[in-house]
């Protein structure tokens, strides 16, 4: 059976040399215990802990693998979506000609498992107004000939999505000024810049100056109405206010007309320029130059040129406004909305959460009631987020918002100001949602502050609040920041409750602008998370939206990472300041 262990029991040596007297008796009893020492078992495999190392390490690897897989998927898809692909022109067996970018290649599922399974490609053909489709599947088997024409042009337009074609001519005022692919393309390049500048100027006038005029008129109208509400609609004050309002209205109308005239002049000038393109089927289509956001000849571009287009598209994406039902253009309003909402949320949730945790841990008498509250708070984290959304809608929008409207914005009723979803209510709802995270993290951090520090402070004659302020909170600050990081990550990625309390598909204005009071927290806003949902599941052109879903996800992750890096930097500073080694 088991061979005797190689290590023979050592001779029993008394730990201390026995001495006489009373101590001798004690030594004697010790010796009798060691004298009957039982044989030692060999250390088992589990005692060595090797298997546990493998199990623990394996679990970590599995978790990392899944996270890495997700990140790699999002990154590869997200980063690839803006790279301009080659434009392919294919002539099919039945004589139809299609042209566009190949976005996907698939094996056709076939019962006969052939060596070389037939493939089909998904072509982004664009030209929706002509063909009534954005994409088209083409089987490899039905392709007669395929080429990548050097001149092929991709237009990204303000409306109708992309256009693929070959340049034919360039028209000014309906008269052809350049004929042939090269000449037409050259004239287009020459005029496109100035046309776009004029377009920008016209839009700027429309949004900025006309917007200001409208805002002024609206303000006066509301003020007049308020006079009416205050002193009665039949009163002389109201009549006077109406009179001055009419005067102002007339003045503003003049300004409005003048600006409108300038806008129309710019648009009329732009309207003179047209690029004529031939579609795959040879159909001549004049395109207004003003409606072209970007025109590329990808087949003629080298890697560097394509990289330029790639960067330009990213730039537009990060700074521009969305168009084409959000599937094209930029997401700046959504970035802005996400960041602003997360910040307002943090502003609310951190003080409240920290104070609540302080009371629970430092002031309240620990007992059954406090434990019950603690369990309740922890369980709050398990309530589905949509429930918070419903609560936010019911409580913040309908009760608080509606009451605010009654008091402060009476004149604009019945159209609600605060009585409907807005960035403030969304932030508050998310603050409520992330409150348990902050409370739990803060409580942990407070509990980790050694009691000896508190006692030391009390012994110096400090009051409770002084002890908390000077000793406990600084010591717990890094732990509290961990809670803030978690809350930001949770809050920035949440979508469901936002759909109820203010996130919209397309917000007409940012919640921040240059007219006082600058922050318009009652406004609805765009949010990247909601944008992803909208793109992925509500879009007409879902095939085109798909890469954008990944790009937007990538962006959202990037923003959360950035916010967290900010919080972690603060935490590291705090750690350094208080000499804690823990990071």
């Amino acid at each position, binding site marked *: 059976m088991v061979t005797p262990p190689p290590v023979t029991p050592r001779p029993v040596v008394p730990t201390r040399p026995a001495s006489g007297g*009373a101590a001798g008796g004690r030594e004697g009893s010790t010796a009798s215990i060691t004298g009957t020492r039982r044989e030692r078992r060999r250390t088992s495999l589990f005692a060595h802990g090797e298997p546990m190392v493998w199990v623990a390490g394996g679990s970590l690897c599995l978790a990392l693998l899944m996270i890495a897989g997700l990140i790699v998927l999002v990154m590869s898809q997200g980063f690839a979506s803006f790279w301009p692909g080659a434009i392919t022109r294919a002539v099919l067996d039945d004589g139809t000609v299609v042209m566009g970018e190949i976005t996907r290649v698939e094996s056709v599922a076939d019962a006969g498992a052939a060596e070389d399974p037939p493939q089909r490609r998904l072509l982004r053909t664009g030209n929706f107004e002509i063909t009534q489709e954005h994409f088209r599947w083409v089987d490899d088997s039905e392709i007669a000939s395929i080429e990548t024409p050097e001149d092929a042009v991709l237009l990204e337009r303000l409306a109708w999505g992309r256009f693929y074609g070959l340049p034919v001519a360039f028209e000014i005022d309906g008269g052809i000024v350049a004929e042939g692919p090269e000449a037409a393309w050259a004239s287009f390049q020459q005029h496109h810049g100035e046309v776009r500048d004029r377009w920008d100027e016209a839009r700027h006038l429309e949004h900025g100056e006309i917007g200001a005029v409208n805002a002024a008129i609206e303000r006066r109208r509301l003020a007049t109405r308020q006079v009416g509400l205050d002193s009665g609609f039949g009163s002389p004050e109201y009549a006077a206010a109406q009179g001055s309002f009419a005067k102002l209205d007339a003045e503003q109308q003049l300004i409005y007309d003048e600006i409108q005239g300038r806008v129309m002049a710019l648009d009329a000038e732009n309207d003179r320029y047209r690029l004529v393109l031939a579609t795959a089927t040879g159909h001549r289509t004049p395109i207004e130059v003003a409606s072209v956001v970007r025109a590329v000849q990808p087949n003629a571009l080298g890697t560097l040129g394509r990289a330029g287009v790639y960067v330009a598209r990213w730039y537009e994406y990060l700074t521009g406004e969305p168009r084409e039902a959000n599937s094209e253009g930029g997401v700046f309003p959504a970035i802005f909305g996400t960041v602003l909402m997360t910040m307002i949320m943090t502003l609310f949730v951190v003080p409240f959460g920290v104070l609540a945790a302080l009371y629970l841990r430092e002031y309240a*008498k620990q007992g059954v009631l406090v434990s019950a509250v603690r369990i309740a708070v922890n369980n709050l984290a398990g309530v589905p987020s949509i429930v918070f959304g419903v609560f936010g809608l019911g409580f913040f929008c309908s009760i608080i918002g509606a009451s605010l409207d009654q008091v402060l914005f009476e004149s604009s009723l019945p159209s609600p100001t605060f009585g409907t979803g807005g960035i403030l209510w969304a932030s508050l709802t998310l603050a409520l949602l992330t409150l348990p995270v902050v409370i739990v993290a803060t409580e942990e951090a407070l509990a980790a502050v*050694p009691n*000896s*520090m*508190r*006692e*030391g*402070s*009390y*012994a*110096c*004659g*400090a*009051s409770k609040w*002084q002890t908390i302020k*000077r*000793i406990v909170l*600084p*010591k717990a600050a890094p732990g509290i920041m961990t809670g803030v990081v978690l809350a930001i990550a949770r809050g920035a990625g949440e979508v469901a409750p936002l759909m109820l309390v203010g996130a919209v598909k397309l917000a007409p204005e940012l919640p921040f602008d240059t007219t006082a009071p600058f922050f318009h927290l009652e406004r609805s806003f765009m949010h990247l998370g909601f944008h992803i949902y909208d793109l992925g599941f509500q879009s007409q052109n879902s095939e085109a939206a798909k890469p954008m879903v990944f790009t937007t996800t990538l962006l959202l992750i990037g923003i959360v990472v950035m916010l967290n890096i900010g919080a972690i930097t603060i935490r590291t500073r705090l750690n350094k*300041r*208080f*000499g*804690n080694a823990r990071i």
Partner: protein
Amino acid sequence: MTPPTQTPVASDATAPGPARLATPKPGASLGGDSNAPRSASVIDSIGRKEFVEPDIHDEMHAADAVLEIQDFCLHYGEAQALFNVSLTLPRHQVTALIGPSGCGKSTLLRSVNRLNDLIDSVTTSGDMRLEGDSIYGPAVDVIELRKRMGMVFQKPNPFPMSIFENVVYPLRIDGERNKAVLEEVCEQSLRAAALWNEAKDRLKDSALGLSGGQQQRLCIARAIAAEPEVLLMDEPCSALDPIATGRIEDLIDELRGSYSVLIVTHNMQQASRTSDFTAFLYRGYLIEAGPTQTIFTQPHRQETEDYITGRFG
């Protein structure tokens, strides 16, 4: 005011102290014999939870008291930890509190500045008086009271802030902002705690970066920064190496004469070296208190002698 025994005890105890403790002295057996029946009854009465009259030497009564503990009892919930303790703390002298582990030394010390108020289950009876002012009276401002005492804990507990801020913490909480005052107090306290030379170039560094012994001296500096009337020390050297211990003993030696110190220690030699008076606590009862020299050479009670010579505890 100052008892004449002060200097002899200190100098006497440092040199032959250890040797004297190791060997039973000739007079002890005689005194022990005469006290034996009485001592046995003391242990028995403790076992029966009866009142035990502490043996307080006349020198202790004669000394000018800064702190008087009067018939003080303390319960942790149901369990009683202190039984009718009555003791005086002589002014500007070092008084050592000795006794076996769990006998209530820390409890008594923490009762003096009412740190036990932080524990919900604690109930007390009896009173203490600091310079005649009641400590446990109904109208006492605990915060003001604590400001009159400094406390050094068993384990160093520097605050998570710079060395400078640690030392001037008691002034900061009083709202002192004058930089010159703060700097002066900081330097004085650090010098008194024998830490100035090591810390003067790193006053702005975190106190948590100091070594254990340095931290303990920092805590002492903090305790004396506000110039307290009483300095309470709970085994200040238990976590320190012999060199740091020596420095802190030297420091206590220097504090004598300007501070009234109550120090808990497990180290008989330390008690005999540093203190002028010694009080022996046993299972929550004060057994004997008197001049250190007498307690260590001719204790009146058998238990005291047994404990000091290491026969129990």
